[in-house]
């Protein structure tokens, strides 16, 4: 009799599992739930979700769909949440994607972009969904399949339109002022004390017969601050080569070191003193932040440079470096775009280039009209930003949300 009963249960279970269940291929717990359906029919299963709707997510290459569903308000308390399943046809194999809490009636399906992945979601394709309500009693009810919902790929990320407008506008300013500069138009740029002190600082090192230390920071070669620093290093190295004084450039990053060697070598060549250049001037120390600080501080304490330049990307090491430099009485010029570090440099250095002044330094030192032209474009850019801030404040005060939406960037 017991064997017969077991056989009956197995047959019943096989019937339930075979009956187009979305979980047929997936997991054991589900099978056991089906078992519980068969053996404990006393408590009713939860209500089914209905009204499945899907919409393609904008600004991608067709790999995202937002699925929404409805659920009877009076039955929400009976369930713990939902499971969301996806298939490429209503009768195909459904795959579980994720879960949602019981008071949440939508799910953002972010499919995989690569083909071999099991959750791959192709562009311009149809998908079908099922939502399974999970009852507090452990029973589960699946909805009717919803779909087809189609994914669409976009050619342009519309959320980034304000950025595009800004870049184009700024590009126009840059071209205009570069053309104006080429035609010989006199462009006024306000003097920067830190830049004007560069010659004086190198001259001081020459007079004292001591080296000049140039720190490019702890950024990689792709940081804008590091790139700006390369430009300044080129001009500083040229001056140093002309004055025939010593230059030390200890580097944090190996790629930065390679580029810096090239920059300094070229500067010595331009100054007509290629014989005085040696790769030992520009060398790698380490790419561990505080080990680098220890190394550079050691150089300062032992070689006692008369002039220190700290130009580039800096983090917590800024004050440790600058205070050590201050303690040996070096004249110090610093510049960084890292806002948190600017106060430290202001306190411990003689001159500090704040934020974009670092980027502009190369143009100031070279006095190249093309470079100065781009500085004027920056001024105009700032003017537009200031105008937008004023308009934004007014719009917010008067509740004109449209303006805010117009300039909002949606990544």
């Amino acid at each position: 009799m017991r064997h017969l009963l077991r056989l009956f249960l197995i047959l019943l279970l096989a019937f339930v599992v075979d009956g187009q269940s979305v979980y047929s291929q997936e997991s054991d717990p589900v099978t056991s739930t089906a078992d519980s359906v068969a053996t404990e029919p006393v408590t009713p299963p939860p209500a089914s979700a209905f009204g499945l709707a899907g919409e393609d997510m904008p600004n991608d290459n067709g790999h995202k769909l937002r699925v929404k569903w409805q659920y009877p308000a009076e039955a929400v308390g009976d369930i713990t949440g939902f499971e969301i399943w996806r298939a490429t046809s209503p009768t195909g194999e459904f795959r579980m994607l994720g879960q949602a809490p019981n008071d949440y009636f939508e799910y953002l399906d972010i499919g995989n972009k690569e083909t071999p992945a099991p959750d791959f979601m192709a562009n311009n394709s149809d998908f079908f969904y099922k939502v399974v309500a999970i009852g507090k009693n452990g029973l589960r009810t699946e909805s009717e399949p919803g779909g087809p919902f189609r994914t669409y790929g976009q050619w342009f990320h519309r959320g980034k339109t304000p950025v595009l407008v800004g870049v184009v506008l700024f590009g126009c300013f840059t071209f205009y002022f570069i053309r104006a500069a080429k035609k010989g138009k006199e462009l006024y740029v306000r003097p920067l004390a830190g830049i004007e002190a560069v010659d004086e600082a190198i001259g001081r090192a020459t007079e004292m017969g001591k080296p000049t230390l140039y720190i490019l920071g702890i950024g990689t070669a792709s940081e804008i601050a590091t790139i700006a620093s390369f430009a300044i290093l080129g001009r500083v190295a040229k001056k140093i080569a002309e004055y025939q004084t010593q230059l030390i450039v200890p580097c944090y990053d190996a790629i930065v070191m390679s580029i810096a060697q090239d920059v300094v070598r070229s500067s010595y060549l331009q100054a007509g003193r290629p014989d005085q250049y040696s790769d030992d001037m520009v060398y790698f120390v380490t790419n561990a932040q505080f080990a680098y600080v220890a190394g550079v501080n050691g150089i300062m304490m032992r070689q006692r440079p008369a002039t220190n330049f700290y130009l580039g990307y800096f983090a917590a090491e800024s004050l440790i470096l600058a205070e050590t430099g201050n303690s040996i009485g070096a004249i110090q010029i610093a510049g960084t775009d890292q806002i948190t570090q600017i106060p430290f440099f202001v306190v411990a250095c003689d001159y500090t280039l704040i934020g974009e002044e670092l980027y502009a330094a190369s143009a100031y030192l070279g006095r190249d009209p093309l470079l100065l032209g781009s500085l004027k474009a920056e001024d105009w850019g700032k003017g537009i930003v200031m105008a937008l801030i004023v308009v934004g404040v007014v719009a917010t005060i008067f509740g004109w949300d449209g303006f805010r939406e117009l300039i909002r960037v949606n990544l």
Partner: protein
Amino acid sequence: MKRRVPLIIVFCVSLFMVIQYFVPLDSLERVYRSFLDYTIIIGVFALLLGIWSLCRVNYDKIKRKSENWQYAIITLTGFFIMTIAGFLSGWGRTDNYLYQHLFSYVLVPIQATMFSLLAFFIASAAFRAFRARSLLATLLLISGLVIMIRFVPLGFLSEPISDLAGWILRVPNMAAKRAIIIGVGLGAVATAFKIMLGIERAYLGRD
């Protein structure tokens, strides 16, 4: 030609980067990821150059017995011990006794000590710089004191001081920071344009 080829490469790659930011195509993203992979590969080879540079400079110091040459021995010894310890467990693994102990009981305390020096330097820099030289400097001084005192338990005064510190951070501090951020942002775009168009060439080692 030798001068132009790098500039053409810079222009093309920059243009690609700009386009891929606005165009959400998988093919562009794949190329973008390849560029990132190239960066890693170049970084690894550059690291070899860096290690070569480190060894050569320190070896020369020892060979020439230049001033303080003894430190170069410590640098090279540390470098070789850590490298050998890193390879003891085989390729791609560092979970051996020597490496873990060097990491936990040498590297960690040394780095933490260097970082803790910051507290001393902040103290000396604050002592020297926070002087009531002018109205603005006095405002800075008072703000600095309020921000610092909020860490100190002062009974019933703690809450209003904490609120005042919060206001200083949220309003005047944020206003100044945002102004600098906007300037930095525009400066970064301008520098990117200059590099893209070949106006700024100093990073290539030429004017």
